[in-house]
């Protein structure tokens, strides 16, 4: 098995492990995700498509 494959499998296993976190912990994680998403949406509303492409580059 090559290193890339091993890394991919470790990553998948880690993602599955995250499902075993306590429920309140997962809700706190979702709260962080939500805040980030809202910030991104607000930023997107302020910036033009050209500015966003420039940032991504």
């Amino acid at each position, binding site marked *: 098995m090559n290193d890339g494959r091993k890394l991919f499998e470790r990553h998948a296993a880690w993602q599955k492990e995250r499902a075993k*976190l306590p429920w309140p912990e997962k809700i706190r994680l979702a709260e962080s995700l939500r805040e980030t998403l809202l910030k991104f949406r607000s930023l997107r509303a302020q910036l033009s498509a050209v500015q966003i492409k420039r940032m991504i580059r």
Partner: protein
Amino acid sequence: MLNAMRSAGVILDYALFGAVAQMRYTEAVSTLDADVLVALPSPERLAALAPIYEFCRNLGHEPEGEAVKVGAWPVQFIPVFSELTREALEQAETVDFEGIPLRVIRADYLGVIALGVGRAKDFARVLALLESNAVTREELAALAKRHDLSAEYERFETRFFDE
């Protein structure tokens, strides 16, 4: 707040559903609001949710669009809207949330309600519940059948499991 609302008779019962309930079984998912299924004492009233909004306002939680802002989360109250959701609420589990008892819709009902809605994100929700072994395909099929959602379940099976 939800338990107090029930004790005050503003609602007959409640249970969390949607993404927040799903996270009991799966990894954390991105969601913008928290959904609460409620049974109301007077569901036929035109402004059936008004007592809920009033109760929340008295506790300092203001309405925000169709939701009520509670801490960081907009909470959306959804009255039971079918026999399936009524049964889901009756069968909800009471779980301990850091010392507070909280009613939550069971995984099988979450899955079948999602099948009934049928958006891409709802199918993703059903797949996540299956992958976490919170529910089996057989359990989903049986519950879907009992609530006349066999066609929706078959479409889901065909789309995601047929070779």
